[in-house]
């Protein structure tokens, strides 16, 4: 418990509460006693059905980024890690790092045009025309790409986040 408290941004009471939430998702899979560190993974479907995540357009990417196996199946540590980064107390750089990974659909450490297009489609329910999608993505890359290589690296993304003061409060899930 103490090492969990040190490695996340939560207090003891919050960790216990999160553990109860984790357990409620699948009471028959998760044991009450975690001292011998059992290897329990909850499948993505259960995580994605949580009320805080079920309407979020990025829930699948969030689960994939924070899970160890990259498929969305989370252990308790992954679960706590996820909500710790998405809580109010996480610093901006950490949130920017994970937000970048969430938007990076093809996991190549760059936000290329196809990543931006997928992000845009998730955010607008596929209702923009092809032309509009292309124009918006081009505009984004024009504005944010500092080193002119046609795609956004982590530094470009962080630079943009520094100038968006709302980011800390929007990249936040309350649990």
């Amino acid at each position: 418990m103490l090492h969990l408290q040190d490695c996340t941004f939560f207090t003891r009471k919050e960790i216990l509460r999160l553990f109860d939430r984790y357990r409620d998702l699948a009471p028959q899979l998760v044991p009450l006693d975690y001292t011998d560190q059992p290897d329990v993974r909850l499948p993505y479907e259960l995580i994605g059905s949580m009320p805080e995540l079920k309407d979020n357009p990025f829930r699948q990417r969030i689960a994939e980024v924070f899970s160890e196996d990259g498929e969305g199946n989370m252990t308790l540590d992954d679960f706590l890690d996820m909500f710790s980064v998405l809580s109010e107390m996480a610093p901006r750089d950490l949130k920017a790092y994970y937000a970048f990974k969430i938007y990076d659909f093809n996991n190549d450490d760059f936000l290329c045009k196809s990543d931006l297009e997928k992000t845009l489609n998730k955010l607008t329910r596929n209702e923009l025309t092809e032309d509009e999608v292309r124009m918006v993505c081009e505009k984004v890359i024009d504005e944010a790409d500092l080193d002119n290589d046609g795609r956004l690296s982590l530094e470009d993304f962080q630079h943009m986040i520094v100038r968006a003061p709302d980011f800390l409060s929007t990249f936040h899930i309350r649990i």
Partner: protein
Amino acid sequence: MSFDDKKHIRGQVLALKSFKKSRQLNCFSDCSTTVSLAFRRCGANMTLAKQTLELWRGTMKEVGGKFGTGVLSYFKFLKWLLMFNIFSFLVNFGFITIPQLIYHPTPDIPAGVSFKGLEILTGAGYFSHTVMYYGGYSNKTQGTGGRSEYNMQLAYFFTVAAYMVLCGAALIYSMASSFRKKYVLADSGLGGAWQLLCSWDFSVTNEKAVRQRKNNLRIQLKESLSEKVQVALLPLTERLKHYGVFLGTWLLSTGMALGCGASVYFLSSSGSLLEEAATLLLPFVVSLINLVVPLFYSLFKKIEHYSNPRMQVYAIIVRNVILKMSILGILCYYWMKDVANTFSCWESIVGQALYRLVIMDFLFIMLGSFFGEFLSNVIGTKCIQSLGVPEFDVARNVLDLIYAQTLAWIGIYFSPLLPVIQIIKFFILFYLKKVSLTQNCQPPRRAGRAAQMQTIFIAILFFPSFVGALSMVAYTVWTLPPSDKCGPFRGLNTTFSAIQIWMDDLNRVDAFQWTVWIYQHVIRSEIFYFLISLIILVFIYIFRQITQGRQLLITLLRQQIVNVSSGELSGLTCLVHQSCCVRSGCVYVMMLLKCWNNIFS
């Protein structure tokens, strides 16, 4: 980094530490790590304790989840203002009212005046002889002489002064920190990128809300795509027409504000308002103006075409602020000039007028909530389907809060227990707005710039609102003669003479000569303020130059990133050329040297 990696690293660090421990008996670093860890855990426990005591935490979470950060900022602002009022109440009650109640437990009410129900609305009658207003306080030094003496005059003055100074300091601090975090770094040119990547609110959990936000984002993106095309295409005649329309609407709105101010002045000086029920007419008219005229202002939206939708919000805010402040300004002028010379216990009269304004404002906010939100919802969903569910107008509601708080700040001197009414009002308002919001409204369509709006609201709270209230109270204390027959300062020339008398008293005691010296040579001398202003101006100039230099440096460094990544040496010569054209040389010479090192190392 996955959790296992973190655990692995932590395990390695612990192993290293225990290895070191077995080799050296150096317990100091171990102690310091344990101590810092203990502090961190203690801090976590204190945060936990603070969270359980925090007011309305669950409600704010719920509102933020359904309606987003913009609407949540209204409720946070309300809670912050409530804290100001609670502090004011504690300070006033503790230092002014309790001593008065101890020495004069029953108020001396003249015969024939009894409590009728109307006092709750008008504040006059029975209340005007109690400790609610300035007139209810005595001017004698309480106590049995010798040990426990309590000088009511000094207590009253210093309590009000200390509260105003602390409020001012708190406002300046939050304004500066909000400005630094949210305004200086934000760039207005980040339309598309910001909207796409940073503006999605992850905390929204309601399916309907999510769908609405997606729609709004789509509409905003479409708008911003078409905006750029539009601006370039306007011919000169069109632009002249737009400027003409702007001039017309601004003249009209300022004229309406001044006209309302003049009518309030004539109404208040008409003199027929001295019976109890008729005194309610003035606050009624003021609140009616505050409710109806902003609706007119929002009609101007249809005629004007601002290129930037944010400018429209700013225009509405500025117009509303001009209206409210001009009405308050006219009322203050009337109180300072006419009431102070006409009535015998004029501070209590002013206190009563403020009480009525506060109560009437509260009633009108409730009515406004009913008509503005509930009825709009009914009309929008059942009768005229095209209107839809009303939006929660954050700007208008925050301006109402600022107006209410201005009234409370003006009333600090005239009615020490006015914060009680304000506290009750804000409490009820919180729950009322929350219920109205959840039943009737949808989140605002423009997702945006909640942080910048927050800065603007705090700035409005400081500049016209707090500074205005402070200047009015300061003018009263410094120049106006207090009334003869009631209040703690009766018989003096001005309220400030109480301090002068106290200083004269202290002068006779040797031990306090330093206080008298400070008073005479620092507070009362003009040279001191002149020097302070000069020093502050010099510092502002220096910091501004530093800021400008840094901005120039940022531009050049950005160019360097482009040049380095595309590997062009010619970029370097361009940089050299640019830096020669720049004023302050040494910073850029340093940067050049850095460039040179990077390329050739």
